[in-house]
């Protein structure tokens, strides 16, 4: 048992060292790195990046190296330009007002950690058309179960059987096959309106569910049936241009319009690995996806989401000398900024580290054997 204990302690210490030493090294040597804010400009029809080298002046630089002020992004900085009296009367040949600009501004961001966690199958049910127009806190919630939804009154944790029956009947009437698979929604009263939830059924078909006057309103979107969706993001923008964004198994991003049409885009986005930032205006959407290697920008037309331009920007920081590679065969970590799981992750494999460790192990064994023989 002493030998087994020694092995247990030895293995545990080895894992501990693989975990903690590289972690400490990274903390000590970590340097911050940031990328410039980049948007597609409707003025110069190119991607322009904010240059922060001069803290006093706002400078944007396009891909050709041309330098501009904030007038190159009139829709994003419309308030500032308007206050200076510099907001243009028209853009892209169309007269524009501040109201139009504000109405059509969209921002959406998503990171992998939002999707790579275990969520409770409980969803708050807002009243999408409140009596006094102002959204209020939800009183009910529905639970996704194998045979259907179950609607509960949260105040006293009571199953609302009759309401449950109505919701399940409404879903079944539209062809919904239980249990629900993906469910996406933003149940918060910190928004202008509520569109309830987009959800897929057991066969992967896409449905829209919301509560209006306490009654379920369900729609099926046949246009999305063939997509084999892996992720849904509900949008709820002021301009209601889209109902949601859909990501299929090939990581293609599709725009779902409120009328049920699905528009495929050229954007490739892996929600499990990449951050997403969408900044949209009256004319163009700048879609940025970013992962460990770099950033990918897509400029889409706002009206039909067709691709206008794209740009890839790999990170250009110099990889610092990683001393741990010369000492350890790999690095062990248990968490990631991309997900909410605690699990062992081995990375940064190094043959040099493996050889060094093997040599050290052989040396220690030989030294102990020699010491044991000398004592005897």
């Amino acid at each position, binding site marked *: *048992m*002493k030998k*087994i*204990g*020694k092995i*247990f*302690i030895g293995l*545990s*210490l080895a894992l*501990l060292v693989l*975990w*903690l030493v590289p972690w400490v090294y990274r903390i000590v040597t970590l340097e911050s790195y940031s990328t410039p804010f980049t948007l597609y400009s409707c003025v110069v029809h190119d991607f322009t990046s904010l240059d922060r080298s001069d803290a006093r002046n706002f400078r944007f630089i396009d891909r050709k190296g041309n330098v501009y002020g904030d007038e190159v992004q009139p829709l994003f900085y419309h308030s500032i330009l308007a206050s200076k009296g510099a907001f243009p009367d028209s853009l892209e040949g169309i007269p524009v007002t501040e109201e139009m600009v504000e109405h059509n501004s969209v921002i959406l961001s998503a990171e992998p950690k939002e999707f790579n*966690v*275990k969520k*409770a*199958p*409980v*969803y*708050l049910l807002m009243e999408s058309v409140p009596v006094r127009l102002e959204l209020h*806190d*939800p*009183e009910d*919630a529905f*639970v996704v179960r194998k045979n259907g939804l*179950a609607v*509960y009154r*949260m*105040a*006293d*944790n009571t199953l609302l059987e009759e309401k449950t029956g109505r919701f399940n009947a409404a879903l079944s009437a539209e062809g919904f096959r239980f249990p629900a698979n993906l469910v996406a929604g933003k*149940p*918060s009263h910190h928004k202008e309106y509520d569109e309830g939830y987009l959800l897929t059924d057991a066969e992967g078909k896409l449905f829209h569910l919301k509560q209006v006057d306490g009654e379920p309103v369900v729609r099926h979107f046949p246009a999305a049936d063939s997509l084999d969706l892996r992720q849904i993001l509900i949008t709820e923008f002021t301009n209601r241009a889209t109902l949601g964004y859909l990501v299929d198994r090939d990581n293609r991003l599709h725009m779902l319009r409120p009328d049920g049409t699905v528009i495929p885009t050229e954007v490739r986005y892996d929600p499990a690995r990449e951050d997403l930032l969408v900044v949209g205006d009256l004319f163009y959407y700048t879609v940025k996806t970013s992962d460990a290697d770099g950033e990918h920008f897509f400029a889409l037309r706002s009206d039909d989401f067709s691709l206008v331009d794209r740009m890839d920007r790999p990170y250009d920081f110099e990889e610092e000398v990683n001393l741990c590679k010369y000492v350890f065969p790999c690095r062990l970590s*248990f*968490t990631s900024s991309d997900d*909410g*799981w*605690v*699990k*062992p992750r081995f990375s940064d494999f190094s043959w040099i580290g493996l050889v060094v460790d093997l040599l050290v192990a052989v040396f220690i064994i030989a030294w102990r054997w020699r010491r044991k023989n000398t004592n005897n």
Partner: protein
Amino acid sequence: MNRMILYKEWLKTRWFLLAAFLVLAAGTFYMGLSLSKTVQFNGADKLWEVLVSKETVLLETLKYLPLAVGGLLAVVQFFPETARKRLKLTLHLPYPQGRMMAMMYGYGLAALTILFLLQATVLTVSLRHYFVTELVVRIMVTAAVWYLAGYAAYIWVAAVCLEPTWRMRVVVIVLLAALVRLLFLSGVPESYNGILPWLVLYVLCGQVLIFHSVARFKEGLQD
């Protein structure tokens, strides 16, 4: 003989177990009171909202209690065995030594299980009053790691108490610190779902440390 072994452990630990029961009960009662006051003033729906949208399970106040109970039980049970090398008396008893140690720490594990099960049951019943089954399961599955920390602390601290040399005690303490760090690394609910069975296995395998310490004691290793 088995009865007497358990009797000996009972004599050592009875007052501590009572104190641990009272502390766990007080913590559970406090949690229940907090919840009911929150429900009274803000409504249960606010708590549902928090559970669904935030990274919390509402019981975070209780999270380190099992760890403390486990570690302290090991001290109460095993420190008297090693003070003045009293372990020699225990090992000299005409009873298989391995089985003796297994019964001793088996008693501790059983005592912890009873305490933790009692608390978990009361919590589950109380939570079920306010929340749907799926949310209660989420909370208790998240809390499972905290209870595992209690078992880990018990086993590892027992090994520290039984270990005759300070050098190895430090090694085992370092391993325990790392294990506890791992068990409390993430506060995201259900983040340990995948790794939990492996962690349970690792903690249970940690029992070899107890036998390892006793074997080293029997060899006469000392500082």
